[in-house]
């Protein structure tokens, strides 16, 4: 059983998804997630949105095509970014981008500031609002299964094989091959190839992604670079300010008896 260190990836071919929610159920079983009481909302997505007990969710999307209503399905889970915003936001380093691909989380470190939830461009981390001492919950990419050479539970269960899993570069190549061989079937966009600097999970679709409930306007570059651009200047700011402020204070306070302890008082202290 070889340890996997090469980045792994997953591709969801939405044209193959039949909306059976098998992935959702298997995910709950494998990760021992409980269920929450839901209410009818007029939409078949159930529960209505992801929550701390639901790591993956099949959303039922209604679209119009030639005056007919169509149903499309998308599977949502943590995208496992190459450069995760959550990991860079976390003040205690509770999130780790592992070499094999999964972004993992250590709940015992978490202080509960919820900056990860604000920072995530896909709004994936969910909080245990009903607990007295809550932690963050999100899809683990079945990190332990991957470490043991298995595929994630949702991939394993998918009846129409809509999800494929393997080395990230091979999965990406397969996505590109499918678009190239069937340009009439797919929109020419692999969602997750460039979004937020690239993600381990990628999608193919026959309907434009913004009409499938995917978030549009996600920057192409890694998000942690945006805050690092500001944080990395800190040493220079500290040094520069220390010098400038000292110089101004020295010049402006020359000959000011108030600015320093007189020598005779210094003597008394020693």
């Amino acid at each position, binding site marked *: 059983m070889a340890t996997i260190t090469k980045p792994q990836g997953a591709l969801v071919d939405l044209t193959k998804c039949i909306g059976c929610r098998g992935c959702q159920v298997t995910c709950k079983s494998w990760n021992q997630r409980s269920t929450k009481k839901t209410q009818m909302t007029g939409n078949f997505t159930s529960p209505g*949105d*992801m*929550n701390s007990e639901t790591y993956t969710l099949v959303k039922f999307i209604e679209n119009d095509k030639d005056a007919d209503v169509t149903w499309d399905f998308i599977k949502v889970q943590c995208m496992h970014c190459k450069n995760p*915003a959550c990991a*860079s*936001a*976390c*003040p*205690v*380093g509770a999130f780790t981008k592992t070499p094999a691909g999964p972004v993992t989380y250590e709940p015992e*470190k*978490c*202080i*509960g*500031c*919820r*900056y990860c*939830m*604000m*920072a995530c*461009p896909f*709004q994936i981390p*969910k*909080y245990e*609002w*009903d*607990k*007295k*001492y*809550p*932690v963050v919950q999100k899809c683990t990419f079945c990190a332990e299964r991957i470490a043991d050479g298995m595929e994630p539970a949702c991939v394993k269960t998918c009846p129409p094989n809509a999800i494929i899993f393997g080395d990230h570069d091979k999965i990406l190549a397969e996505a590109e091959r499918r678009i190239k061989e069937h340009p009439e079937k797919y929109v020419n966009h692999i969602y997750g190839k460039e979004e937020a600097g690239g993600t381990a999970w990628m999608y193919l679709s026959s309907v434009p992604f913004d009409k499938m409930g995917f*978030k549009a*306007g*996600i*920057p192409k570059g890694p*998000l*942690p670079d*945006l*805050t*690092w*651009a*500001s*944080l990395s200047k*800190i040493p220079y*700011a*500290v040094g520069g*300010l*220390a010098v400038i*402020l*000292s110089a*101004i*204070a020295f010049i*402006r*306070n020359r000959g*000011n008896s108030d*600015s320093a*302890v007189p020598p005779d*008082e210094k003597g*008394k*202290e020693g």
Partner: protein
Amino acid sequence: MSDTTNKKDLSVFSIGTLILLAVIAYGVYSAYYRFSYGLGPSTNLSDSVPWGIWIAFDVLCGVALAAGGFTITAAVYIFNMKKYKPIARPAILTAFIGYLMVVVGLVVDIGQPTRFWHPLVMWQHRSVMFEVVWCITLYSIVLGLEFAPAFLEKLKLNLLLKFLKFFTFPLVILGIILSFLHQSSLGAFFLIMPGKLHPLWYSKLMPQMFYISAIAVGLAMVCFESIVSAWAFKRDYETDIIRGVGKGTAITLLVYLIVKVADLGMRGALPLAFDGGTASKLFLAEVGLGVVAPMVLLAIRGVRESVSGVLGASVLVIGGVIMNRFNTNFFAQLGSGVSYFPTSKEIGITLGLIALGVFLYRLAVVFLPVLHEAKAEH
């Protein structure tokens, strides 16, 4: 050492103080409820709105409103503007109390309050939150040391006082640097959310704009406080000081406005301010009422020289910065489609912290040499 404050006028248990104590009591009850039952039952926070008024007001606004501490110490000690010496100690006191309230607010807000110390031990230097926690912790200590002379004078510990005075300049410089870092980093929080924040607010210059607006509101708070405490403690208005600080506020607002408009222009986002949508209305209200109006008012000599004029302008600046932080934290967040209104417990804790701050300020002024410290010293 003569004490210029007339203690007969400063009874601690006035009607105002009783109201403060009532609000504090409700805050304590709200905090008890929050710690007993957790965030879910006590707040309206959700996965869609993870940061509520405790972050938006207690932290983002609280830190900005306490910026008078570093701006006035910079003016008095670094630039040697002796005129402002009398307000240095009240400004440091306000900042110190303000930061204590921010720290309490943060501990209340985080989901695992008993782990508040984790960022000090588990370093993650690429996190803005990590940097902010460190800066707020260190700056609270700096402010405590900057205010310590008031205690030492009261207790007549002159040797310790002289010892501490030796560190006045290093402490002031450290305080200014720490303030620069975390005041701007509160803006840097939102740099990682380009897809979420409306383009009227999202900018690479958010750290700089948070810093400049903090200076403006810090100065406005100093004016506001000077006027209100003169009124509350039946003292003469510090008209000369207020006029000078008011002028400084106007200049800072002008710099802020230039940076803001230039940034919007260069990003091509300026037309969005006038498209008539909700965001444009919020933006125009924030910049019009909170930046342009007080700047114009304070530029007029007659307004600057009238106490009510400066008071009005200061309130506008304070309101403007509060609007800016609330817009950034809630209203400019795109596509959430979720409404949020804080629960009575959330409001109770926020109001309780404000009341506790005012009460502590009042106690300090009555029992410690705070007001007109310069006169008492020489």
